[in-house]
């Protein structure tokens, strides 16, 4: 009898706890849940390669261009590994960057300088600095592991393409970020990151990133064709054009080591 009673009470408690959990999910819990779902949606891509054309535009409208090839290997139990190979401007042709991203722990990063044939390990102190003079910071282009941020669900609203988006605020949990917070618009159906607004350390709006031309690969993985970053404080902007996306190309960890940088 006693055993039965205890069991009944504990079961009831469990049910009550469970229901309060669902019913009164805090904005933080909801933000994290959605972000995890978005991350899970992209699970299992194994690897991909793509070409990126980066067009920098200053306030006067003068443009300059960078061309970079990207190779990424999905991390298992850790963050992704990625290799960026620079083709333009001509003077940095052959330069390559290898990144092992982690959750909260600082990413490991090596730079290959072709003129010296030197592989140089670099630190991540200044990840808030601009990537090749663009409006993208290193931290914007790194792998966006779930653990890197703390989340808070804000609202659901209409967004681009007539989609409905969840708006989530995320605060960098890693050291040396240049942002106090970011607001991310994820569409409710496929969790595509349509828009991100970046707030600087003084909490004023700094940049807006808009992603368009989403295409689905292998019937599952969504990637944008164009990413446009506008800096509201300087009037400068950078546009990324992605082409030639290929998934599951058969890359392995052997393609992501210090030796591979020189190839």
């Amino acid at each position, binding site marked *: 009898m006693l055993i039965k009673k205890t069991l009944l009470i504990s079961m009831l408690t469990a049910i009550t706890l469970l229901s309060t959990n669902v019913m009164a999910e805090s904005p933080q819990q909801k933000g994290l849940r959605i972000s995890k779902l978005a991350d899970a949606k992209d699970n299992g891509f194994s690897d991909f390669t793509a070409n990126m054309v980066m067009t*920098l535009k*200053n306030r006067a409208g003068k443009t*300059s261009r960078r061309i970079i090839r990207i190779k990424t290997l999905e991390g298992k139990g850790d963050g992704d590994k990625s290799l960026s190979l620079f083709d333009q*401007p*001509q*003077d*940095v*042709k052959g330069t390559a960057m290898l990144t092992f991203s982690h959750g909260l722990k*600082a990413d*490991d990063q090596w730079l290959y300088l072709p003129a*010296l*044939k*030197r*592989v*140089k*390990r*670099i*630190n*991540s*102190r*200044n990840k*808030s*600095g*601009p990537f*090749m*003079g663009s409006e993208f910071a290193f931290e914007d282009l790194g792998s966006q592991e779930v653990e890197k941020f703390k989340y808070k669900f804000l609202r659901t609203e209409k967004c681009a393409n007539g989609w409905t988006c969840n708006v989530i605020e995320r605060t960098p949990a890693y*050291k*040396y970020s*240049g942002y106090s917070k970011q607001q991310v618009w994820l569409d409710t159906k496929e969790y595509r990151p349509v828009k991100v607004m970046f707030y*600087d350390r003084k909490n004023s709006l700094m940049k807006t990133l808009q992603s368009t031309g989403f295409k689905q690969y292998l019937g599952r993985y969504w990637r944008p064709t164009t990413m446009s970053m506008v800096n509201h*404080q*300087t009037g400068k902007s950078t546009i990324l054009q992605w082409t030639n996306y290929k998934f599951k190309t058969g890359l392995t960890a*052997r393609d992501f*080591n*210090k*030796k*591979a940088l*020189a*190839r």
Partner: protein
Amino acid sequence: MKTNIFLLTSVSTLFISTLGVSTGVSAGELSGNISLEGRYFNSDGAFPDQQKNGGISLSLQPEYKHKWDNDHSQFTFSPFYRWDNQDKERTHADIRQLDIVSSKGDWEFQAGIGKVYWGVTESQHLVDIINQTDAIEGADGEDKLGQPLFRVSHLSENGSLDLFVLPYFRERTFAGSKGRFRTPLVIDTDKPTFESSKKEKHIDYAVRWSETVDELDIGVHYFNGTSRAPIFNPIIKNGIAVGLQPHYPLIDQIGIDLQYTGEETIWKFEGISRNYTRQSGLKDYTASVVGFEHSLPLLSDSGLEMTLLGEYHHDSRGEVASAPFQNDVFVGSRLSFNDTESTELLAGAFVDLDNSSKSLRVEASRRIGKGLKLNIEAQVFMDIDKTDPLKIFEKDDYLQLELQKYF
């Protein structure tokens, strides 16, 4: 040039055969740069015949690259030529690279003429021994001659093991009588002597193991062969020394390089222990560099980045000609503007702790327009003690402008 022709014929057969069997061929790519350099010296040379105020120089380094097998194999050909209007020794050609690199699973192979870089420190490159220094190119010792080599590398969970066979030796380049940065007696590069009876055909060997363990990057090497750094013997004519003859002894060397990459501060160490043969009569020695690189927070919203550098040099030989950095400190700072033009500035000073001789160096670079780059370099020698090996360069303070066109 004789050397280069030898190298060309000896490796070309290999390339032709390898290229012949390659599948999935994609078009090769041609790139490279052509540079115009102007140098200004503010004092007359210390020695007779030396150029007065500097001169101009042109260099060309194209690179042809062909990749196949999903980028797992590549062929590279990169010749180099420099013309100098002052020093005929500085007018020279080299094959910087003519090789095939191929990787299959855990193995990587390299054959041909190539360049290999080892090391972590900035102000001196102690462990970097595979390639000969093209000393006439620049004062920093970072320009290298192409080295004929065969390499096999094996990658495993325990790092990378590289085995090198180096079948041909390259002699170091030196300034001619009109050149700056030279010894009082001109080095006669036409008559080098070797400890090995096989001379430049002595086969050198090297092994290196390198590994990354979290924040630590480790490299350990062993080298057996002809020293890249020569010693000098006077050339005597009628009882008078008229020049210096380079002599290349045989050595055995072990070395280690370490880097600990902290989030704000990077710590570095390079050390070597070099042994000569008993017959050579030369004294074994050790040398090391220990230093740090500290990143400051960004200095501005535009991303101005400042890094502080400090390195200490030790050499057990003491203050001798071949060891200018026996108890010296290098302090410097690198500024990266992170702008569209990739503007960078590096300023630093070597200070000899024994005699307070100083040498200041500034390097700056900036992209201008499309495919053009401007490099500025300057060096000043100060309070050079008369016992310091740098004494001979005291009158060689210079400013150099270089405009590079990339294609």
